[in-house]
């Protein structure tokens, strides 16, 4: 039932708005609205009940194991949420003078320092509002750097074929052409192909390390050397930073600029598809181009640095200063964990991934890279099962939902057929992992004994498989009376 279908004409909820507001007689009639928008007319209880019931149709970290690869669905601490939601923070207008914004500014400044240290890069701007906007900022900074040197020939960006879809889409938004670099059979970047691809047109490369294949790019220093020698720069996609916190740093690997997904590594809630936050960090070479505003500190007062302070900046990416509430949460999370706790994150995320990988291999599942160590995530492929049993990765994913587990990322990265990208995160217990393994074993058995049970899954959810073709062909995007 839609909220519009429980609506009744004339039902009003007077508590939420001033009553008897006077008409706006000074505004000319032809500029006024004459037809009220079609909103539901419902009571407060009806609203509360409707959306509470809807919430119960969702899987979430709070209710289910959610091993969605490359998304780092770890526990979002309640204390962090509560402290970032204090009244003083919530009622604070973004354009309040700095004298009355020191609490927020200090928190943002501290996070800049923490991120700089963790990444091994010298400066940070917190303004990008999600990973993809952080990518945009980084690639636009590389573009601005080349142009500032009068180097206009660099029109190409290199992107490995295993990259997130946002990488090529971002480089195109920044006006570049894409050259795809293949992956070798061990999951590393094909160095010969890379050497052949670089040249005077190379603006840079976008890399994730550990890559989306769940393995560490071992020859990263050599890659950096090849790119830098050709005059290009290196962009680090921070989606997998959870794997290396306190173990190694993108700045040391030779990266010039990167983004960090606070909604992954720093445990801020994903909110059903956002908000995220994608701060961008840069080395000395690219620091002048960071997006504004940035928080500065003179030893006494925190204040916003704008394009007046940073004349080479690529500029502003949002009306104010990014997703401030998420930045606060990341600050609180990082300072709760502290230096030991942050190092433990990557240790236990990696332990959980390698344990799961080892147990699944023992149970007969096919690993995409059996001779490699898992990072914080790894890939299994159902290519064999698809062929012999006619059961696809999608079928198994849907059956997992029946067992109350969110499916891992499916069919990504694109170069491994029928794959699951599995990321358990550090906040899951061994019991939860064992339970997941047992469920997968059960499903594989079902796939052999009664394949239709798996192919027709899910059976126990609010809806069964949806007709996506109909959704796209007979577009129904808004309810009409």
């Amino acid at each position, binding site marked *: 039932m839609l*909220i519009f279908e429980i609506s009744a004409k004339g039902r*009003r909820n007077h508590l*939420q708005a001033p009553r008897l*507001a*006077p008409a*706006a007689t000074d*505004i000319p009639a032809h500029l006024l*609205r004459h*037809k009220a928008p079609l*909103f539901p*007319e*419902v009571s407060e209880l009806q609203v509360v009940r409707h*959306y509470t019931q*809807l*919430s*119960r149709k*969702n899987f979430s970290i*709070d209710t289910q194991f959610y091993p969605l690869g490359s998304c780092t*669905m770890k526990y979002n601490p309640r204390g962090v949420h509560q*402290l970032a939601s204090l009244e*003083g923070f*919530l009622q*604070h207008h*973004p354009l*309040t003078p700095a*004298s009355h914004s*020191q609490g927020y500014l200090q928190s943002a400044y501290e996070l800049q320092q923490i991120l700089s240290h963790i990444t091994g890069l010298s400066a940070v701007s917190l303004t990008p509002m999600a990973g*993809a906007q952080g990518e*945009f900022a980084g690639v636009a900074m590389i573009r601005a750097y080349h142009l500032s040197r009068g180097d206009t020939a660099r029109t190409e960006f290199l992107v490995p074929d295993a990259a997130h*879809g946002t990488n090529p889409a971002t480089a*195109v938004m920044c006006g570049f052409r894409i050259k795809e670099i293949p992956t070798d059979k061990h999951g590393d970047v094909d160095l010969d192909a890379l050497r052949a691809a670089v040249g005077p047109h190379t603006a840079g490369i976008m890399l994730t390390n550990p890559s989306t294949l769940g393995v560490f790019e*071992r020859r990263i220093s050599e890659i950096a050397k090849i790119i830098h020698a050709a005059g290009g720069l290196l962009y680090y996609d921070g989606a997998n930073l959870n794997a290396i916190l306190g173990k190694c740093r993108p700045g040391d*690997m030779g990266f010039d600029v990167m983004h960090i997904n606070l909604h992954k590594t720093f445990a801020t*809630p*994903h909110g059903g*598809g956002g*908000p995220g936050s994608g701060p961008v960090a840069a080395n000395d070479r690219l620091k002048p181009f960071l997006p504004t505003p940035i928080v500065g500190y003179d030893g006494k007062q925190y204040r916003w640095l704008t394009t007046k302070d940073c004349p080479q900046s690529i500029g502003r*990416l949002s*009306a*104010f200063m990014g997703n*401030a*509430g*998420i930045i*606060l949460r990341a600050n609180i999370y990082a300072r709760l964990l*502290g*230096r030991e*706790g942050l190092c433990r994150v990557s240790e*236990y995320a*990696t*332990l959980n991934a390698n344990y799961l990988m080892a147990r699944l291999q023992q149970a007969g599942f096919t690993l995409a890279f059996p001779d490699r160590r898992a990072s914080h995530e790894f890939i299994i492929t159902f290519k064999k099962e698809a062929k012999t049993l006619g059961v696809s990765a999608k079928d198994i*994913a849907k059956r997992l939902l029946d067992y109350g587990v969110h499916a891992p990322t499916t069919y990504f990265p694109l170069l491994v057929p029928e794959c699951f990208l599995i990321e358990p995160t*550090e906040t899951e*217990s*061994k019991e939860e992992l064992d339970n997941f393994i047992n469920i997968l074993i059960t499903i594989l058995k079902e796939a052999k004994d009664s394949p239709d049970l798996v192919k027709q899954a899910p059976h126990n959810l609010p809806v*069964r*498989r*949806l007709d996506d073709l109909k*959704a796209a062909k007979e577009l129904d*995007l*808004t309810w009409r009376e």
Partner: protein
Amino acid sequence: MPFIPHTEDDVKTMLKTIGVKSTDDLFDEIPSNLRINDLNALDVGLNEMAMGRDMKDRAARDGGLACFLGAGAYEHHIPAAVWQITGRGEFLTAYTPYQAEASQGTLQLLYEYQTMMAHLMGLEVSNASLYDGASALAEAVLMAVRTNTAAKESRILIAGNLHPHYRQTIEALVRPQGILLETLPYNDKTGCLETQLPKIENGDIVAVVIAQPNFFGGIEEVDAITDWAHQHQALVIAVVNPIAMALLKEPGAWGQRGADIVCGEGQPLGIPLASGGPYFGFLCTKMDYVRQMPGRLIGRTVDQDGKPGFSLTLQAREQHIRRAKATSNICTNQGLAVTAATIYMSLLGASGLSDVAKASHANSKTLCAALTAIPGIRLRFNSPYFHEFVIECPCTADVLIQALLKKNILAGLDLSVLSPELDHCLLICVTETKTADDINAYVNAFLHALQNITSISTTVED
């Protein structure tokens, strides 16, 4: 260990299963010259209690001001139910609804959001949100360039009275694609766009960007501008305040054919000011242009038993499918803020939203009348306005802002941010949250500040 459930026994068993001696061995593929051993430059961790004291202290330093500042972020009453429901773990800690069957809650809510937003704007389609108002406008500009393929050049005409931060954001986000941004001037007396619109050739311009209300709070003659743009084969991009749309003519009804793309900041719909985010950007358009839209779209369909359900649709526009050929690089959007906005709109209904708009308008008229009755204070622009207006003062706006801050009043925005010659101008916003007492307190503090300033300048002159 904070947020890590492993016991020592667990770790031993797990390492044994993997076949390594220590967790350190799990990082043996990282070249040793790249390894670091600690993060000891950072502080040790705090517990929740200590952190609570620290953050309460910081929050107290930032709070407690009576807010008369708008300029793109607006304080409105947020019903208790909005964030009580939005904060449920099932909304808060889910991710993008890729597994539709396990995300029907979020998906149905987004479909309801799309419906309400499209109806509020008088258009056929809304997406499921973008980051914020300014970046949504940049996406709208890129969408217009993709849509209006008849235009000879990628030229966009932008209202000169658009929020300056929006202008800066578009510059940063669309400049790399070689799009030309030009300014449509506003009239110095009205603050609104010139009624004498410039001469342009047909097909010279991709789109015209109009703000309703404009940055000064003024209400534009949208019908005439829309028809003029359409006569020259330019699309109309409207940047609007969603609360104002409960009172002012909806963009779908502007002129003969209505605005083509409508975007703006969704924050007024139940999202707290919160230092500038997370907010959300909305984007609505006509059905004909839906395939050029950026961002997620939710469609209603049926499951294999014929039961209604919801799923992400037209994904072939998006980066995870189309990669380099996507309409945008956007992936994560602002789902949670949209959840709050949907609950807010449901609680208020059309009449409630209209009451909020009318009360904000009436309150701003009251304060404006009281201030402009003070000798030496005048209304800077003589056009009708929604809930923000500009006054010109005998001193710089900054002096007044500092004086009122001492009385815990956030007086407004110093318009020298827009241009140095507007440094005596103060942009003031009043919403439905302000009572007659609040407005009186502002006027008294303002009078007091003015008297001080006048007496100081008199002393100096003596």
